[in-house]
């Protein structure tokens, strides 16, 4: 007896014949125009982050006391800060910081959360109960409070200029939130006949979890991942604003709002205006993209 691969769709071969169907991306753009617009913003942000050295007009760290607190002009599109550093260039480089910390912490938190959620659903019983109580404890703290505790409790540790402590601090609060959502989706997958078949065939738990269950909860995982990038960017900005995130002179949006921006915002409002807009826009774009992705991928929203 052979067992069909449960991850493959059970459709007749004729139905899968190649036809001139619009690509998923075009479909997404048609169905979710706001999502497409937010994707454009994210793309621009990613482009700026990856190619910051080519895009930025100035070095973001170079001090120029002659241009201290210069208003927006042709030379400095977004003005300069209290050290005469070009704000536009710092915003562009700041996109890199936001994306690296935002994406990495969201990816780590969401992935670990998804694994925990699937394992919890798959094993059930005591293991499920223990995992869920642990998740309950973590969920009892607001995201930013838990991140604050973690970042304050551990010493700073960076690899290649990336603040690992900060990534872990933001990833930990994301973990239980994703675990809870993914568990709910995995519970329905767990009772599917192909999981029973896989168990009957004697597959290991790891194989069943990663090969047969995980691909079937990828939609909620992706949605959570995208939505939490926005939260992670906001958390990074908040922690940096509170002096617990990245340190000066690194270009980071939250950091640009703190420090001496508070001293000079009356005479140089551009010091807080542009970083504030950048944070808002990034959070808005990722949230909107996450929502659009959910609407696009979740079949219940298509009914």
């Amino acid at each position, binding site marked *: 007896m052979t067992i069909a691969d449960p991850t493959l769709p059970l459709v007749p071969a004729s139905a899968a014949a190649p036809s001139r169907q619009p690509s998923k991306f075009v479909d997404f753009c048609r169905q979710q125009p706001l999502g497409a617009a937010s994707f454009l913003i994210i793309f621009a942000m990613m482009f700026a982050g990856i190619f910051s050295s080519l895009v930025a007009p100035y070095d973001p760290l170079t001090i120029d*006391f002659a241009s201290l607190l210069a208003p927006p002009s042709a030379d400095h599109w977004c003005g300069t800060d209290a050290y005469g550093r070009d704000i536009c260039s710092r915003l562009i480089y700041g996109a890199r910081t936001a994306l690296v910390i935002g994406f990495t912490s969201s990816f780590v938190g969401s992935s670990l959360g998804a694994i925990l959620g699937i394992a919890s659903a798959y094993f059930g019983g005591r293991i499920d109960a223990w995992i869920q109580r642990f998740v309950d404890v973590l969920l009892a703290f607001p995201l930013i409070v838990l991140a604050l505790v973690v970042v304050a409790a551990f010493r700073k540790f960076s690899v290649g200029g990336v603040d690992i402590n900060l990534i872990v601090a933001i990833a930990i609060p994301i973990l239980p939130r994703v675990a809870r959502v993914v568990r709910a989706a995995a519970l329905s997958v767990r009772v599917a006949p192909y999981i029973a078949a896989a168990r009957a065939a004697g597959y290991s738990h790891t194989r069943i979890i990663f090969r047969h269950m995980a691909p079937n909860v990828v939609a909620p995982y992706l949605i959570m991942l995208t939505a939490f990038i926005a939260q992670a960017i906001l958390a990074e900005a908040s922690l940096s604003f509170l002096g617990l995130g990245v340190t000066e002179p690194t270009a980071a949006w939250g950091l640009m709002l703190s420090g*001496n921006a508070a001293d*000079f915002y009356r005479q140089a409002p551009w010091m807080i205006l542009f970083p504030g807009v950048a944070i808002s826009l990034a959070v808005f774009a990722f949230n909107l993209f996450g929502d659009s992705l959910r609407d696009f991928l979740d079949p219940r929203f298509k009914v």
Partner: protein
Amino acid sequence: MKISRRTALQGTAGALALGVSGFDWDFTKANAQAPNVKRGGVLNFAISAEAPHYDPAGSDTYATLHFAAPFYSTLLRFNLSKFPAVENDLTTSYTVAPDLMTYTFKLTPNVNFHDGTPLTSADVKATYDRMRNPPTGVVSTRQATFADIGSIETPDPLTVIFKMKAVNASMLEHFASPWNVIYSAKDLAENPAGPRTKINGTGPFIFVEHVKGSHVAGKKNDAYFKKGFPYLDGFKGIFTLQAAAMLNAVQGGQVLGEFRGISPAERDRLVQTMGDKIRIEESSWTLNLLVCFNVDKKPFDDVRVRRALLMAIDRWGGSVGLSKISTLRSVGGVIRPGSPFATPESELVKLPGFSKDIKKSREEAKKLLKEAGHENLKFTLWNRNLAMPYTPAGIFLVDQWRQIGVEVEHKQSDTGAYLATMNAGNHDVAIDFSNLFMDDSSLGLAKYLSIGRSPENRSRSKDETLDKIYDDHLRERDPEKRKAMIRAFEKRVFEQGYQQPLLWWHRIVPTHKTLMGWKMSPSHNLGQQLEDVWMNT
């Protein structure tokens, strides 16, 4: 003679400038002459850093002193109305032998510690013995200062005689140091390290509580030996680690002042928002930030690397820019610029790291790094997470070193962790500070002595030549010869580049106008006993 408006304005501006920068400016006259002192009330004031421990004798951060000074007394103290003149604190009188080899102090009778133990000459002896010969487990940052004391005699309970091994022309001022608070001999016998965690002084206020991350509180010592003092019922020093929080607290009246100092921008904000409710006092400051290399770590054991890094710093340009946004202002050597023994600018520019031709200086720096085989040098700069002026200094240094191709990671941490890292020698390069309470060279130069003599030398250097010049200069009573020795010392320090002042600070202190009796001085270490402070509310 007709005086134009421009001339009149220039004259007024000049007079004001002289007034605020003058060293002998009497900041306190108005307060001291206040006719009707009002008693009572609890003074809330801001402390921008939390004390790493309670022991002033083992500390050099104001965070300890602003925390602990109201609980303690010293033998002598500085008279801030006539700074740098000294006056009695625990003493009723003192005499100095003409050869400067004997100092005799008569103590005030009937002084009690807060636990009720009477103060005697034995307490003074135990305190000074602990500072000059700290027992195992005790850190004394005053060890070098009191190394010249040969013996301490206590012929009766109210007399202390210090016999010197050698002349130290500045000894009297050191007896007035705010750091040398007197501990109970009984406490020290029980636990020599006790003052780090326990407070029992003879000061105007009794310790009530220290809530970590929040505040330190003290209540009036009704048995204080200076009758009629203190005026206040108590005080609360509130830790405001964020500058914005401190400013909001001052603005909102939750605290009536911050006695360390604020930046020009912060001053402007307070003046703009509080108008005539806020009092602003300014002075030059006996405090500088230092660039400090850990010579125990490679490649900072190489003088070429240290010199190259110092030569890359444009102090003159930096002072212009940083003075607009921070408390950093003057370029100077090891002695506060403008004070009698300071090196004049014409001589300073000839020393490594002080050239005004920064292009040439940086070219030389690059050559030195190449010679030393460290063209692509990378290191971590340790810094304190105090916004003012440590963060601007860190940002500035990172920028300066990038200009010679050096990559720097800037790490900032709380005062406790920052000091612990440096004291343990775990730093590569750090922004250290030289926190002085007077301009005397015996104090200013001590930080640069070999680590064995000066625990606050965080470059960990050992230099017998420097130690010898220092010792010789202490014995020298001719001011001109002493000045020449200070210059020789400074030249040697900068040529070796173990550590070097970045910039000297400018002190701006905001207090509510209802706060009376507090006295401004060029040092934020002085005048923090708060015994004669009162509130006009």
